[in-house]
Protein backbone atom coordinates (compact mmCIF):
# COMPACT_ATOMS: atom_id res chain seq x y z
CA UNK A 1 0.00 0.00 0.00
CA UNK A 2 1.32 3.43 -0.86
CA UNK A 3 2.11 5.60 2.18
CA UNK A 4 -0.26 8.40 1.03
CA UNK A 5 -3.23 6.04 0.71
CA UNK A 6 -2.40 4.51 4.07
CA UNK A 7 -2.34 7.94 5.75
CA UNK A 8 -5.68 8.84 4.16
CA UNK A 9 -7.26 5.63 5.47
CA UNK A 10 -5.90 6.27 8.97
CA UNK A 11 -7.21 9.84 8.88
CA UNK A 12 -10.67 8.63 7.87
CA UNK A 13 -10.87 6.26 10.83
CA UNK A 14 -9.78 8.89 13.37
CA UNK A 15 -12.52 10.99 14.98
CA UNK A 16 -12.88 14.46 13.47
CA UNK A 17 -11.47 17.25 15.59
CA UNK A 18 -13.89 19.31 17.62
CA UNK A 19 -14.83 22.78 16.54
CA UNK A 20 -16.46 25.50 18.62
CA UNK A 21 -19.66 26.97 17.32
CA UNK A 22 -21.21 30.05 18.87
CA UNK A 23 -24.47 31.67 17.98
CA UNK A 24 -26.21 34.81 19.21
CA UNK A 25 -29.99 34.79 19.07
CA UNK A 26 -31.75 38.14 18.99
CA UNK A 27 -35.09 39.58 18.00
CA UNK A 28 -35.67 41.89 15.05
CA UNK A 29 -35.64 44.69 17.64
CA UNK A 30 -32.06 43.72 18.50
CA UNK A 31 -32.94 42.37 21.94
CA UNK A 32 -31.30 39.10 23.10
CA UNK A 33 -33.62 36.08 23.04
CA UNK A 34 -33.31 33.58 25.88
CA UNK A 35 -34.64 29.99 25.75
CA UNK A 36 -34.02 29.59 22.01
CA UNK A 37 -33.03 26.07 21.01
CA UNK A 38 -30.07 25.88 18.62
CA UNK A 39 -29.14 22.51 17.16
CA UNK A 40 -26.62 21.21 14.65
CA UNK A 41 -27.84 18.18 12.70
CA UNK A 42 -24.94 16.39 10.93
CA UNK A 43 -25.45 16.04 7.18
CA UNK A 44 -22.63 13.63 6.30
CA UNK A 45 -21.61 11.79 9.45
CA UNK A 46 -23.91 9.38 11.27
CA UNK A 47 -25.60 10.69 14.41
CA UNK A 48 -24.15 9.16 17.58
CA UNK A 49 -26.80 7.27 19.56
CA UNK A 50 -28.17 8.76 22.76
CA UNK A 51 -26.43 7.32 25.86
CA UNK A 52 -28.51 4.61 27.54
CA UNK A 53 -28.60 6.53 30.83
CA UNK A 54 -29.53 9.87 29.29
CA UNK A 55 -32.17 11.45 31.52
CA UNK A 56 -33.63 14.93 31.83
CA UNK A 57 -36.07 16.29 34.40
CA UNK A 58 -39.08 18.57 33.99
CA UNK A 59 -40.55 19.02 37.47
CA UNK A 60 -43.79 20.58 38.65
CA UNK A 61 -43.13 23.04 41.44
CA UNK A 62 -45.06 26.05 42.67
CA UNK A 63 -47.77 25.15 40.14
CA UNK A 64 -45.36 25.79 37.26
CA UNK A 65 -43.08 23.54 35.21
CA UNK A 66 -39.50 24.12 36.34
CA UNK A 67 -38.36 24.69 32.79
CA UNK A 68 -40.24 26.60 30.10
CA UNK A 69 -38.05 25.17 27.31
CA UNK A 70 -36.11 21.90 27.46
CA UNK A 71 -34.09 20.30 24.66
CA UNK A 72 -33.13 16.63 24.45
CA UNK A 73 -31.75 14.22 21.89
CA UNK A 74 -34.32 11.79 20.49
CA UNK A 75 -34.38 8.66 22.67
CA UNK A 76 -33.84 10.52 25.94
CA UNK A 77 -35.86 9.62 29.01
CA UNK A 78 -37.65 12.59 30.59
CA UNK A 79 -38.72 12.36 34.25
CA UNK A 80 -41.70 14.39 35.49
CA UNK A 81 -41.48 14.61 39.29
CA UNK A 82 -44.37 16.32 41.09
CA UNK A 83 -42.73 18.45 43.78
CA UNK A 84 -45.92 20.33 44.56
CA UNK A 85 -48.42 19.69 47.32
CA UNK A 86 -51.22 19.54 44.77
CA UNK A 87 -52.09 17.01 42.11
CA UNK A 88 -51.28 17.68 38.48
CA UNK A 89 -52.55 16.22 35.23
CA UNK A 90 -49.62 16.36 32.85
CA UNK A 91 -50.43 15.85 29.16
CA UNK A 92 -49.38 16.59 25.62
CA UNK A 93 -51.43 16.66 22.45
CA UNK A 94 -48.37 17.16 20.23
CA UNK A 95 -47.85 14.77 17.30
CA UNK A 96 -44.36 13.49 18.18
CA UNK A 97 -45.61 12.24 21.56
CA UNK A 98 -49.19 12.28 22.78
CA UNK A 99 -49.41 11.27 26.43
CA UNK A 100 -51.35 11.79 29.61
CA UNK A 101 -50.38 11.37 33.28
CA UNK A 102 -53.78 11.90 34.94
CA UNK A 103 -54.16 12.76 38.63
CA UNK A 104 -50.49 12.91 39.21
CA UNK A 105 -49.92 12.92 42.98
CA UNK A 106 -47.33 14.93 44.91
CA UNK A 107 -44.13 12.97 45.35
CA UNK A 108 -44.66 10.84 42.25
CA UNK A 109 -42.23 10.81 39.34
CA UNK A 110 -43.27 9.20 36.06
CA UNK A 111 -40.91 9.03 33.10
CA UNK A 112 -41.40 8.91 29.34
CA UNK A 113 -38.90 8.25 26.54
CA UNK A 114 -39.18 10.77 23.71
CA UNK A 115 -37.94 8.99 20.61
CA UNK A 116 -39.45 11.01 17.76
CA UNK A 117 -37.88 14.38 16.92
CA UNK A 118 -40.18 17.37 17.01
CA UNK A 119 -41.83 19.81 19.36
CA UNK A 120 -43.79 18.45 22.31
CA UNK A 121 -45.86 21.04 24.14
CA UNK A 122 -46.62 19.88 27.66
CA UNK A 123 -49.39 21.24 29.86
CA UNK A 124 -51.30 20.60 33.05
CA UNK A 125 -55.01 20.04 32.57
CA UNK A 126 -55.79 21.29 36.07
CA UNK A 127 -53.67 24.44 35.95
CA UNK A 128 -54.08 25.80 32.44
CA UNK A 129 -51.32 28.37 32.80
CA UNK A 130 -48.70 25.64 33.27
CA UNK A 131 -46.89 25.05 29.98
CA UNK A 132 -43.51 23.67 28.98
CA UNK A 133 -41.94 23.06 25.58
CA UNK A 134 -39.82 19.98 25.03
CA UNK A 135 -37.78 20.15 21.83
CA UNK A 136 -36.67 16.67 20.74
CA UNK A 137 -33.77 16.95 18.29
CA UNK A 138 -32.08 14.22 16.19
CA UNK A 139 -28.59 15.19 17.30
CA UNK A 140 -26.44 15.35 20.43
CA UNK A 141 -25.18 18.81 19.42
CA UNK A 142 -27.61 21.35 20.78
CA UNK A 143 -27.91 24.12 23.36
CA UNK A 144 -30.37 26.62 24.74
CA UNK A 145 -29.64 30.34 24.61
CA UNK A 146 -28.92 32.13 27.88
CA UNK A 147 -30.25 35.51 29.01
CA UNK A 148 -27.80 37.23 26.64
CA UNK A 149 -29.09 35.12 23.75
CA UNK A 150 -25.73 33.31 23.56
CA UNK A 151 -25.24 29.66 22.65
CA UNK A 152 -22.02 27.62 22.53
CA UNK A 153 -21.80 24.14 21.01
CA UNK A 154 -18.72 22.01 20.54
CA UNK A 155 -19.14 19.55 17.67
CA UNK A 156 -16.88 17.58 15.31
CA UNK A 157 -15.86 19.35 12.16
CA UNK A 158 -18.20 18.72 9.27
CA UNK A 159 -21.33 19.85 7.47
CA UNK A 160 -24.45 20.57 9.54
CA UNK A 161 -27.97 21.85 9.26
CA UNK A 162 -28.41 24.70 11.75
CA UNK A 163 -31.87 24.87 13.29
CA UNK A 164 -33.09 27.61 15.63
CA UNK A 165 -36.41 27.35 17.45
CA UNK A 166 -38.15 29.49 20.04
CA UNK A 167 -41.77 29.30 21.34
CA UNK A 168 -42.43 32.68 19.73
CA UNK A 169 -40.60 32.23 16.42
CA UNK A 170 -38.23 30.14 14.34
CA UNK A 171 -35.53 30.73 11.77
CA UNK A 172 -35.40 28.78 8.52
CA UNK A 173 -32.83 25.98 8.71
CA UNK A 174 -29.53 26.69 7.02
CA UNK A 175 -26.42 24.71 6.17
CA UNK A 176 -23.00 25.44 7.62
CA UNK A 177 -19.60 23.81 7.81
CA UNK A 178 -17.48 23.61 10.93
CA UNK A 179 -13.79 23.54 10.16
CA UNK A 180 -11.15 21.66 12.17
CA UNK A 181 -10.24 23.50 15.38
CA UNK A 182 -11.64 26.73 14.01
CA UNK A 183 -14.28 28.74 15.80
CA UNK A 184 -17.44 29.39 13.86
CA UNK A 185 -19.95 32.09 14.64
CA UNK A 186 -23.54 32.70 13.54
CA UNK A 187 -26.26 35.19 14.33
CA UNK A 188 -29.91 34.23 14.37
CA UNK A 189 -32.54 36.95 14.18
CA UNK A 190 -36.06 35.86 15.11
CA UNK A 191 -39.32 37.63 14.37
CA UNK A 192 -41.08 37.10 17.68
CA UNK A 193 -44.82 36.66 17.82
CA UNK A 194 -46.66 38.03 20.89
CA UNK A 195 -46.49 35.82 23.97
CA UNK A 196 -49.96 34.26 24.06
CA UNK A 197 -49.69 31.94 27.01
CA UNK A 198 -52.65 31.48 29.34
CA UNK A 199 -52.05 33.95 32.14
CA UNK A 200 -51.88 33.01 35.80
CA UNK A 201 -54.21 35.61 37.20
CA UNK A 202 -54.65 36.94 40.70
CA UNK A 203 -57.41 35.38 42.76
CA UNK A 204 -59.87 32.83 41.51
CA UNK A 205 -57.67 30.96 39.05
CA UNK A 206 -55.26 29.82 41.73
CA UNK A 207 -57.30 26.76 42.48
CA UNK A 208 -58.83 25.44 39.33
CA UNK A 209 -59.73 25.54 35.70
Amino acid at each position, binding site marked *: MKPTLFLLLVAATLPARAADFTCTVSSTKGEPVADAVVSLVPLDAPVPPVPADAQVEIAQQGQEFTSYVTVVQAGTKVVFPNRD*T*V*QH*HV*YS*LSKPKKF*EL*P*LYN*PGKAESIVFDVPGLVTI*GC*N*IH*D*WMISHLVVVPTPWFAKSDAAGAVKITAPAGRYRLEVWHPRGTQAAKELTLADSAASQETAVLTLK*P*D*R*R*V*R*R*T*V*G*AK*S*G*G*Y
Partner: protein
Amino acid sequence: MKPTCRLLLLSGLLAIVAQAQEGTAAGWMENLHLTASGSAAWVNNLSRTSYEPTRKDATTYEFKLGGSQPRQLASSLLLVASGEITTLSVPDFDLADNLRAGGRLALQKKFGLGPLAPVLQVSAGTSYKSARWAGDRGWTTEAGVQLAQRVLPYLRLAASVQWLEHDAKSQVFDLNQHSYSLEANWDINEHWSLNGSVSRLDGDIVANAAYSVWWQALGGGLGPTVQKYYNARPWAETGIYGPEWVSYNVEAKVDLWSVTLAYALSTHTSVELRKSAARVVNHIGISYPTDSWGLSLSHRF
Protein backbone atom coordinates in the same frame (compact mmCIF):
# COMPACT_ATOMS: atom_id res chain seq x y z
CA MET B 1 -84.14 28.28 51.43
CA LYS B 2 -85.05 25.94 54.25
CA PRO B 3 -82.64 25.88 57.20
CA THR B 4 -82.05 22.14 56.62
CA CYS B 5 -80.71 22.80 53.10
CA ARG B 6 -78.48 25.53 54.47
CA LEU B 7 -77.27 23.15 57.17
CA LEU B 8 -76.50 20.51 54.53
CA LEU B 9 -74.46 23.01 52.53
CA LEU B 10 -72.51 24.14 55.57
CA SER B 11 -71.94 20.50 56.58
CA GLY B 12 -70.57 19.81 53.11
CA LEU B 13 -68.15 22.69 53.45
CA LEU B 14 -67.03 21.55 56.90
CA ALA B 15 -66.62 17.96 55.68
CA ILE B 16 -64.30 19.12 52.90
CA VAL B 17 -62.25 21.21 55.30
CA ALA B 18 -62.06 18.26 57.72
CA GLN B 19 -61.12 15.84 54.94
CA ALA B 20 -58.44 18.22 53.73
CA GLN B 21 -57.03 18.33 57.25
CA GLU B 22 -56.40 14.57 57.13
CA GLY B 23 -53.35 15.40 55.05
CA THR B 24 -50.39 17.23 56.49
CA ALA B 25 -51.09 20.63 58.01
CA ALA B 26 -48.34 22.14 55.88
CA GLY B 27 -49.85 20.67 52.72
CA TRP B 28 -53.30 21.89 53.69
CA MET B 29 -52.01 25.38 54.31
CA GLU B 30 -50.09 25.38 51.04
CA ASN B 31 -53.25 24.46 49.14
CA LEU B 32 -55.30 27.10 50.90
CA HIS B 33 -55.55 30.09 48.59
CA LEU B 34 -56.11 33.31 50.49
CA THR B 35 -57.11 36.51 48.78
CA ALA B 36 -57.83 39.97 50.07
CA SER B 37 -59.26 42.91 48.23
CA GLY B 38 -60.25 46.44 49.00
CA SER B 39 -62.35 48.63 46.78
CA ALA B 40 -63.92 52.04 46.63
CA ALA B 41 -66.89 52.81 44.41
CA TRP B 42 -68.61 56.06 43.48
CA VAL B 43 -72.25 55.17 43.02
CA ASN B 44 -74.93 57.29 41.41
CA ASN B 45 -78.35 56.60 42.90
CA LEU B 46 -77.10 54.20 45.55
CA SER B 47 -80.47 54.70 47.22
CA ARG B 48 -82.21 53.16 44.20
CA THR B 49 -84.77 55.94 44.09
CA SER B 50 -87.13 56.59 41.20
CA TYR B 51 -87.80 60.30 41.78
CA GLU B 52 -84.66 61.93 40.39
CA PRO B 53 -84.37 65.04 42.65
CA THR B 54 -84.24 62.85 45.74
CA ARG B 55 -81.69 60.29 44.52
CA LYS B 56 -78.72 59.78 46.81
CA ASP B 57 -75.24 59.28 45.45
CA ALA B 58 -72.48 57.97 47.70
CA THR B 59 -69.03 56.51 47.97
CA THR B 60 -68.84 52.95 49.23
CA TYR B 61 -65.87 51.02 50.58
CA GLU B 62 -65.64 47.26 50.52
CA PHE B 63 -63.07 44.95 52.06
CA LYS B 64 -63.07 41.27 51.25
CA LEU B 65 -61.07 38.37 52.69
CA GLY B 66 -61.49 34.98 51.10
CA GLY B 67 -60.00 31.53 51.20
CA SER B 68 -60.46 28.55 48.94
CA GLN B 69 -59.38 24.92 49.06
CA PRO B 70 -59.46 22.97 45.77
CA ARG B 71 -59.76 19.19 45.76
CA GLN B 72 -59.36 17.10 42.61
CA LEU B 73 -61.99 14.35 42.74
CA ALA B 74 -61.13 12.77 39.38
CA SER B 75 -58.90 13.68 36.46
CA SER B 76 -61.42 16.19 35.15
CA LEU B 77 -63.56 16.84 38.20
CA LEU B 78 -62.60 19.52 40.69
CA LEU B 79 -64.35 20.53 43.89
CA VAL B 80 -63.56 23.94 45.34
CA ALA B 81 -64.69 24.89 48.83
CA SER B 82 -64.40 28.55 49.66
CA GLY B 83 -65.24 31.00 52.39
CA GLU B 84 -65.44 34.75 52.37
CA ILE B 85 -65.98 37.69 54.71
CA THR B 86 -67.02 41.01 53.18
CA THR B 87 -67.62 44.35 54.82
CA LEU B 88 -69.38 47.20 53.07
CA SER B 89 -69.13 50.66 54.46
CA VAL B 90 -71.08 53.71 53.28
CA PRO B 91 -69.87 56.65 55.39
CA ASP B 92 -72.66 58.99 54.23
CA PHE B 93 -75.41 56.45 55.00
CA ASP B 94 -74.09 54.21 57.72
CA LEU B 95 -77.36 52.32 58.07
CA ALA B 96 -76.47 50.76 54.70
CA ASP B 97 -73.29 49.24 56.20
CA ASN B 98 -73.16 45.50 56.40
CA LEU B 99 -70.90 42.54 57.00
CA ARG B 100 -71.37 39.26 55.21
CA ALA B 101 -69.74 35.90 55.93
CA GLY B 102 -70.36 32.70 54.09
CA GLY B 103 -69.15 29.64 52.24
CA ARG B 104 -69.54 28.13 48.82
CA LEU B 105 -69.02 24.78 47.10
CA ALA B 106 -68.27 24.64 43.39
CA LEU B 107 -67.95 21.49 41.32
CA GLN B 108 -66.11 21.93 38.03
CA LYS B 109 -66.13 19.43 35.18
CA LYS B 110 -63.69 19.93 32.32
CA PHE B 111 -64.59 18.36 28.99
CA GLY B 112 -61.32 17.37 27.37
CA LEU B 113 -57.67 18.32 27.57
CA GLY B 114 -56.03 21.69 27.28
CA PRO B 115 -56.82 25.30 28.09
CA LEU B 116 -59.43 25.51 25.32
CA ALA B 117 -61.58 22.70 26.72
CA PRO B 118 -65.00 23.84 28.01
CA VAL B 119 -65.64 23.81 31.76
CA LEU B 120 -69.02 23.36 33.41
CA GLN B 121 -69.38 24.60 36.96
CA VAL B 122 -72.22 24.00 39.38
CA SER B 123 -72.06 25.96 42.62
CA ALA B 124 -74.04 26.58 45.76
CA GLY B 125 -73.33 28.86 48.67
CA THR B 126 -74.79 30.37 51.74
CA SER B 127 -73.90 33.47 53.74
CA TYR B 128 -75.17 35.49 56.65
CA LYS B 129 -75.69 39.21 56.17
CA SER B 130 -75.28 41.21 59.31
CA ALA B 131 -76.64 44.58 58.25
CA ARG B 132 -76.58 47.72 60.35
CA TRP B 133 -80.31 47.99 59.64
CA ALA B 134 -81.66 45.00 61.58
CA GLY B 135 -84.49 44.28 59.13
CA ASP B 136 -81.98 43.39 56.42
CA ARG B 137 -80.19 40.79 58.54
CA GLY B 138 -80.58 37.22 57.45
CA TRP B 139 -79.34 34.29 55.42
CA THR B 140 -78.65 34.42 51.70
CA THR B 141 -78.49 31.28 49.62
CA GLU B 142 -77.13 31.17 46.10
CA ALA B 143 -76.82 28.54 43.41
CA GLY B 144 -75.49 28.77 39.90
CA VAL B 145 -74.43 26.98 36.75
CA GLN B 146 -71.72 28.32 34.48
CA LEU B 147 -70.33 27.11 31.19
CA ALA B 148 -67.00 28.67 30.30
CA GLN B 149 -64.56 28.21 27.47
CA ARG B 150 -61.40 29.85 26.28
CA VAL B 151 -61.83 30.34 22.56
CA LEU B 152 -58.23 31.54 22.43
CA PRO B 153 -55.56 31.22 25.13
CA TYR B 154 -56.18 34.87 25.97
CA LEU B 155 -59.96 35.09 25.44
CA ARG B 156 -62.39 33.37 27.80
CA LEU B 157 -66.15 33.40 27.39
CA ALA B 158 -68.68 32.33 29.99
CA ALA B 159 -72.44 32.02 30.23
CA SER B 160 -74.12 31.54 33.55
CA VAL B 161 -77.44 31.21 35.28
CA GLN B 162 -77.79 32.12 38.96
CA TRP B 163 -80.43 31.97 41.60
CA LEU B 164 -80.42 33.89 44.88
CA GLU B 165 -82.68 34.00 47.90
CA HIS B 166 -82.29 36.32 50.86
CA ASP B 167 -84.38 35.45 53.88
CA ALA B 168 -84.31 38.67 55.92
CA LYS B 169 -85.82 39.56 59.28
CA SER B 170 -88.14 42.03 57.58
CA GLN B 171 -89.98 40.88 54.47
CA VAL B 172 -89.12 44.27 52.90
CA PHE B 173 -85.61 42.91 52.45
CA ASP B 174 -86.57 39.39 51.35
CA LEU B 175 -85.19 38.68 47.90
CA ASN B 176 -85.81 35.98 45.37
CA GLN B 177 -83.90 36.56 42.14
CA HIS B 178 -82.62 34.68 39.15
CA SER B 179 -80.23 36.03 36.57
CA TYR B 180 -78.56 35.13 33.29
CA SER B 181 -75.21 36.56 32.29
CA LEU B 182 -72.60 36.52 29.56
CA GLU B 183 -69.02 37.40 30.27
CA ALA B 184 -65.86 37.85 28.22
CA ASN B 185 -62.35 38.16 29.58
CA TRP B 186 -59.51 39.27 27.34
CA ASP B 187 -55.91 39.12 28.55
CA ILE B 188 -54.51 41.93 26.42
CA ASN B 189 -50.92 41.25 27.44
CA GLU B 190 -48.87 40.12 30.43
CA HIS B 191 -50.26 42.92 32.61
CA TRP B 192 -53.49 44.25 31.19
CA SER B 193 -56.82 42.50 30.90
CA LEU B 194 -60.30 43.62 30.00
CA ASN B 195 -63.50 42.04 31.22
CA GLY B 196 -67.00 42.77 30.02
CA SER B 197 -70.28 41.34 31.18
CA VAL B 198 -73.96 41.75 30.51
CA SER B 199 -76.71 40.25 32.59
CA ARG B 200 -80.45 40.20 33.04
CA LEU B 201 -81.91 39.76 36.49
CA ASP B 202 -85.54 39.02 37.32
CA GLY B 203 -86.86 39.15 40.86
CA ASP B 204 -87.28 41.23 43.96
CA ILE B 205 -85.28 44.35 44.65
CA VAL B 206 -85.34 46.86 47.48
CA ALA B 207 -85.90 50.48 46.50
CA ASN B 208 -86.10 53.59 48.63
CA ALA B 209 -88.09 56.82 48.64
CA ALA B 210 -88.48 59.97 50.65
CA TYR B 211 -91.60 59.69 52.77
CA SER B 212 -93.29 62.63 51.00
CA VAL B 213 -92.98 60.87 47.64
CA TRP B 214 -93.96 57.50 49.09
CA TRP B 215 -97.08 58.95 50.74
CA GLN B 216 -98.08 60.43 47.40
CA ALA B 217 -97.65 57.03 45.74
CA LEU B 218 -99.69 55.21 48.37
CA GLY B 219 -102.37 57.86 48.31
CA GLY B 220 -102.92 57.65 44.58
CA GLY B 221 -101.13 60.89 43.67
CA LEU B 222 -99.00 59.01 41.14
CA GLY B 223 -101.94 57.18 39.59
CA PRO B 224 -104.05 54.13 40.41
CA THR B 225 -101.57 51.56 39.02
CA VAL B 226 -98.81 52.81 41.28
CA GLN B 227 -101.21 53.08 44.21
CA LYS B 228 -102.54 49.54 43.79
CA TYR B 229 -99.12 47.95 43.27
CA TYR B 230 -97.24 49.79 46.03
CA ASN B 231 -100.02 49.15 48.55
CA ALA B 232 -99.63 45.44 47.82
CA ARG B 233 -95.86 45.38 48.41
CA PRO B 234 -94.03 45.25 51.76
CA TRP B 235 -92.51 48.53 52.95
CA ALA B 236 -91.10 50.04 56.13
CA GLU B 237 -89.80 53.34 57.37
CA THR B 238 -86.07 52.67 57.69
CA GLY B 239 -84.37 56.04 57.45
CA ILE B 240 -81.43 54.41 55.67
CA TYR B 241 -81.03 57.30 53.24
CA GLY B 242 -82.33 60.10 55.44
CA PRO B 243 -84.92 60.93 58.06
CA GLU B 244 -88.37 59.62 57.19
CA TRP B 245 -87.16 57.61 54.23
CA VAL B 246 -88.87 54.34 53.46
CA SER B 247 -87.58 51.13 51.92
CA TYR B 248 -89.92 49.04 49.83
CA ASN B 249 -89.77 45.76 47.98
CA VAL B 250 -90.75 45.49 44.31
CA GLU B 251 -90.49 42.95 41.52
CA ALA B 252 -88.16 44.19 38.82
CA LYS B 253 -86.13 43.44 35.74
CA VAL B 254 -82.54 44.61 35.87
CA ASP B 255 -80.29 44.92 32.82
CA LEU B 256 -76.74 45.24 34.02
CA TRP B 257 -73.49 45.76 32.17
CA SER B 258 -69.99 46.23 33.41
CA VAL B 259 -66.52 46.74 32.01
CA THR B 260 -63.42 46.12 34.09
CA LEU B 261 -59.89 47.04 33.14
CA ALA B 262 -57.32 45.26 35.28
CA TYR B 263 -53.59 45.73 35.61
CA ALA B 264 -51.53 42.94 37.19
CA LEU B 265 -48.77 44.47 39.28
CA SER B 266 -47.43 40.94 39.82
CA THR B 267 -48.77 37.40 39.65
CA HIS B 268 -50.20 38.07 43.13
CA THR B 269 -51.49 41.63 42.99
CA SER B 270 -53.77 43.49 40.63
CA VAL B 271 -55.55 46.82 40.38
CA GLU B 272 -58.96 47.08 38.72
CA LEU B 273 -61.00 49.95 37.39
CA ARG B 274 -64.65 49.11 36.90
CA LYS B 275 -67.57 50.90 35.29
CA SER B 276 -71.01 49.42 35.67
CA ALA B 277 -74.54 50.54 35.03
CA ALA B 278 -77.93 49.03 35.70
CA ARG B 279 -81.27 49.73 34.13
CA VAL B 280 -83.74 48.74 36.82
CA VAL B 281 -87.43 48.76 35.93
CA ASN B 282 -90.07 47.53 38.33
CA HIS B 283 -93.21 45.55 37.63
CA ILE B 284 -95.25 48.69 36.80
CA GLY B 285 -92.59 50.43 34.71
CA ILE B 286 -91.00 52.71 37.32
CA SER B 287 -87.26 52.90 36.77
CA TYR B 288 -84.31 53.27 39.13
CA PRO B 289 -81.20 53.81 36.99
CA THR B 290 -77.89 53.38 38.80
CA ASP B 291 -74.30 53.47 37.70
CA SER B 292 -70.93 53.41 39.37
CA TRP B 293 -67.20 53.72 39.01
CA GLY B 294 -65.04 51.48 41.15
CA LEU B 295 -61.37 51.06 41.90
CA SER B 296 -60.04 48.00 43.66
CA LEU B 297 -56.82 46.34 44.73
CA SER B 298 -56.64 42.55 45.05
CA HIS B 299 -53.88 40.42 46.48
CA ARG B 300 -53.43 36.66 46.55
CA PHE B 301 -51.26 35.47 49.43
